[in-house]
């Protein structure tokens, strides 16, 4: 080999550089990315899907759930520290991880390799979906922290657009997939499940969890589009005072139920 001439002070000139032993900070950043995916983001996903499930009980119950969440102590701090900042970090660093990997399923179409690639695609779907979801549902239109009981009408109006509904369904499946496989990856990479057999069994557990979460999430979506609760005539206005009556019969019905 070309290395034989000089073994004492060999320098790799081309190709992949050797390990920078005990140098640099990528370990910390990568592990933080991994950890944040489970806590708090995974925990938040569970909470969000369970809260959405409340929508099956109707606009009032959904509004009450949104109201409850927004009445948590220091809720704005919780929101930024445990949701927005971890989300942004996990998403942006995740894109960075994706860009640095070179997928090769064409040559090596093995199960683990497919999952590796799928984790990147589901992640980037989640990233763009969540970005628009947070902007449109949290920071645009009627402010739900101030008017929690308008939540149902706001979401229902969003999902009335069939394209948007398709986006929500695809994103729901992608995110549940990403989280379920993310738990498996976490257990594998942090050394919780070193054994091959144990990892395989846990794979089934994670798959079941992913399917269950996706069903839960899709049921939540169904609550808004299934036709059980009438569609609001128009989107709730962006600026509405505390006492103003929201537009649309459904929103009105919501407020009535809430007051009764």
């Amino acid at each position, binding site marked *: *080999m070309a290395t034989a001439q000089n073994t004492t002070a060999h320098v790799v000139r*081309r190709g992949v550089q050797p390990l920078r032993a*005990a140098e640099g900070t990528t370990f910390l950043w990568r592990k933080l990315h991994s950890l944040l995916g489970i806590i708090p983001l995974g925990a938040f996903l569970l909470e969000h899907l369970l809260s959405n499930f409340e929508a099956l009980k109707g606009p009032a119950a959904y509004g009450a759930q949104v109201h409850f969440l927004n009445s948590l102590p220091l809720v704005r701090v919780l929101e930024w520290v445990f949701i927005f900042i971890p989300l942004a970090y996990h998403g942006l660093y995740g894109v960075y991880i994706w860009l640095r990997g070179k997928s090769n399923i*064409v040559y*090596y179409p093995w199960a683990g390799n497919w999952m590796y690639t799928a984790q990147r695609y589901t992640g980037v779907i989640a990233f763009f979906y969540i970005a628009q979801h947070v902007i449109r549902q949290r920071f645009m239109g009627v402010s739900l922290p101030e008017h929690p009981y308008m939540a149902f009408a706001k979401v229902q109006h969003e999902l009335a657009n069939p394209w948007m509904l398709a986006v929500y369904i695809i994103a729901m499946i992608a995110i549940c997939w990403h989280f379920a496989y993310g738990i498996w990856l976490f257990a*594998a*990479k942090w*050394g919780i499940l070193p054994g091959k057999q144990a990892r395989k069994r846990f794979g089934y557990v994670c798959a079941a969890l992913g399917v269950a979460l996706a069903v839960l999430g899709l049921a939540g979506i169904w609550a808004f589009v299934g036709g059980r609760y009438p569609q609001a005539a128009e989107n709730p206005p962006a600026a509405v005072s505390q006492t103003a009556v929201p537009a649309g019969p459904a929103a009105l019905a919501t407020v009535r139920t809430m007051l009764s």
Partner: protein
Amino acid sequence: MADKKLQLEIKRQASPDDPAEWERFELDWRPGMNLVSAMMDIAANPVTADGRPTTPVTYDSNCLEEICGSCAMRINGKARMACSALIDNLEQPIRVEPLSKFPLVRDLQVDRSVLFENLKAVKAWVPVDGTYDLGEGPRVYPQQQEANYPLSNCISCTCCMEVCPQFNESTGFVGAATIAQVKLFNNHPTGKVFKEERLRALAGDGGIQECGFAQNCVEACPKQLPLTEAISDLGREVAVQKVKDFLRK
């Protein structure tokens, strides 16, 4: 028998800076051929399928029994050892290319010294220099030997690195082989004197954190090393070591 032929397509490149080109070869089939013996036949009569004289194909090989790790190359797209690639088991024409992740030297020969550098970076050895007699080493129980033996089977062929989506120039990932050797030498009663150093080394840039757990390494390994198990175990140990170091600072 003599009229049975086999078709080979080999990617040739005279030097790292020359353009690559494919050459087709048609050889007489013999029973029990493997890819190295086929290339030996080419060396004996270096003429392409269309009758053009050419040079013998350059490639690394030594033991021809899948134990030295030299002859790794891409055969029909997949990284594997040429010596254990039996011609009768391969789809023809057999397409042969050099490993793609290592600097090319010539034809199918690549410079895999990055693995040697990585093994040095994690001190993958037992630190006994033999300058004086230390007496008997500590006893290694059979149970521990059983656990270590599969890890000691590594032949440094670099197939695990070639097939890894994370092993590339952007990450500078260390690769599964080195991680498995860390586990082997940390398990050794004398070798474990460097245990903490090795774990810290693996937390450096390009370290164990870059693993994406695509598990290609364990699929491709010709010696069936428990690579994913080693990555998982060391993932835990490196994380614990980093936390310990942080708390003791």
